[in-house]
């Protein structure tokens, strides 16, 4: 007999976890000594399915892992790799840390914002590119470096950026 907005479950939504993802999460949850260990891998799976982590999926996940959306959200926002809103088809993440900065990361960032006509943190109007700054990607020997989706592009200069963007359809 409760009349307030439902905190517990989602009714129909356009973001339903695929059967495959649900199976994988259920299996993972059973394989760890504590169910909750499957949380971060599960969030990765969700992000793989949608490109970001849509709020309704958090409720579905909460039910699979017997926890609450609020607790998951705390974890979700702690880590930088999870996207809380949709990103472009190509998510460009440029390292802004020390080695890359020393070798011209700023120029690459400026070049990309000019070329894509977006600011850092924005997505192009056609939904193709999102530009984000990140901390050290662990590729300092090949600085400056950026990551597009999960692939690294290293030793960047303007010419190389042009070439890379051309290959991304």
């Amino acid at each position, binding site marked *: 007999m409760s009349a307030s907005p439902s905190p517990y479950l989602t009714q129909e939504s356009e973001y339903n976890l695929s059967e495959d993802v649900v199976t994988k999460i259920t299996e993972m949850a059973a*394989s760890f*000594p*504590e169910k*909750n*260990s*499957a*949380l*971060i*891998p599960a*969030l*990765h799976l969700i992000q793989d399915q949608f490109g970001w982590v849509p709020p309704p999926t958090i409720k579905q996940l909460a039910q699979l*892992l017997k926890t609450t959306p609020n607790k998951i959200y*705390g*974890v979700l926002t*702690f*880590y*930088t*790799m*999870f996207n809380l809103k949709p990103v472009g088809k190509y998510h460009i993440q440029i390292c*802004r*840390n*020390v*080695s890359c*900065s*020393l*070798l*011209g990361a*700023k*120029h690459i960032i400026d070049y990309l914002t000019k070329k894509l006509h977006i600011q850092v943190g924005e997505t192009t109007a056609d939904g193709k590119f999102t530009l984000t700054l*990140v*901390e*050290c*990607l*662990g*590729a*300092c*020997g*090949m*600085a400056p470096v950026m*990551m597009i989706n*999960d*692939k*690294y592009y290293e*030793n960047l200069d303007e010419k190389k950026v042009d070439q890379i963007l051309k290959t991304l359809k």
Partner: protein
Amino acid sequence: MANQNILLNFDRNGANHTLENYLKRKGYSTLSEKIPNMKPEQVLDEVKKSGIRGRGGAGFPAGIKWSFLPKDSDKPVYLICNGDEGEPGTFKDRVILEENPHMLIEGMILAAYAINAKHCYIYIRGEYGFALQRVQQAVDEAYRAGYLGKKLTGANYSCDITVHKGAGAYVVGDETGLMNSIEGKKGQTRNKPPFPAVEGLYQCPTIINNVETLASVPWIIDHGGAAYHSIGTEKSSGTKLLSISGHVRKPGVYEVDLGYPFMDFLNKDCGGVIGNRKLKAVIPGGSSTPVLRPEDCEKITIDYESIAEAGSSLGSGAILIIAEGSCMVKTLEVLTHFYHHESCGQCTPCREGTGWLHKIVKRIEAGQGKMEDLDLLTSITKHIAFHTICPLGDAACGPVDSFVKKFKDEFIEHIKTGGCPFGGKFVRFQERV
């Protein structure tokens, strides 16, 4: 003096990550040949004898760490491989993960045997997509070949490895933060005691080592702890992977015997400073270690003691070269931004202090600083350092104190002239080798 290749014992241009290739390099022979004749205590003994110090940054002797496990616990023991390589400037574990994963796996199996762990985790930072893929492939191969699983090929014990993908948080690189992350929590550091060896992952005794440390174990067991100890210096034994980046002509990952002269390494192995510029500064062990001026570096050798004597630390072996013409205030601004961004928010001094550090450095760089700001910076670091649960607070202070101390003139110039003498930008270097 020729440096040994223990970890990079393969042609860096080939496909070396496969089981086939590893077996060609006599891989898994330690497991199948030595282990059947060794008791766990003997394995532990050899690691102790080797004197190998933790390669993640803190440099704590691995063998001693393993011996902290309680003898009378009936809980399972876990082994974790820390592959959350996040210290800016560091990219050496990535080479092992991507190019030599089987050596790591064999090392973990041996370590697990020594400490009686049945289940191991490899935690790899989420950004390392390729490394994750390679390691998972290698783990799968090892299971198929019977090196992992119920009863291991050539040895009478079982060992499982789970690969865990991180999700982007520098603090998770800390031992207990990483355990929290595996448990599906925020990667905040735990209060100690209890220490991980007593109560770690899932409240069970846990040993956690860096990728490089564990990957060195097969060689140590194969050749004996004494042989490993004979490499390097008395207190810094063995070889060390160095990741060198910044204004250097041949950046990359190198393996050197500890005790190797720094200037030889920079000028001979790595081709010297880019564009024939003069060396301006060196951060010798990852972004958290205090910066050194060129004159500090003349005499140092690459090992824990020598660099400590010079007032810094070998850390993770990530060497950052800064050439003349770069703005040190701007460099510090980048670093303080990083620590502020990565502060988890649990401890007051770090949460509030890193923010102030960044804010103040930023305003000095923008020409809006005051002379008092320099004292304020050092007074804030005094209250952060050693007053937080995890070392992030300390790490944020190392660069601030040393930059201000060693390049004070440059800071004063910013304040006095009301602007950045370098135009607020880093110099661009065209020449790369």
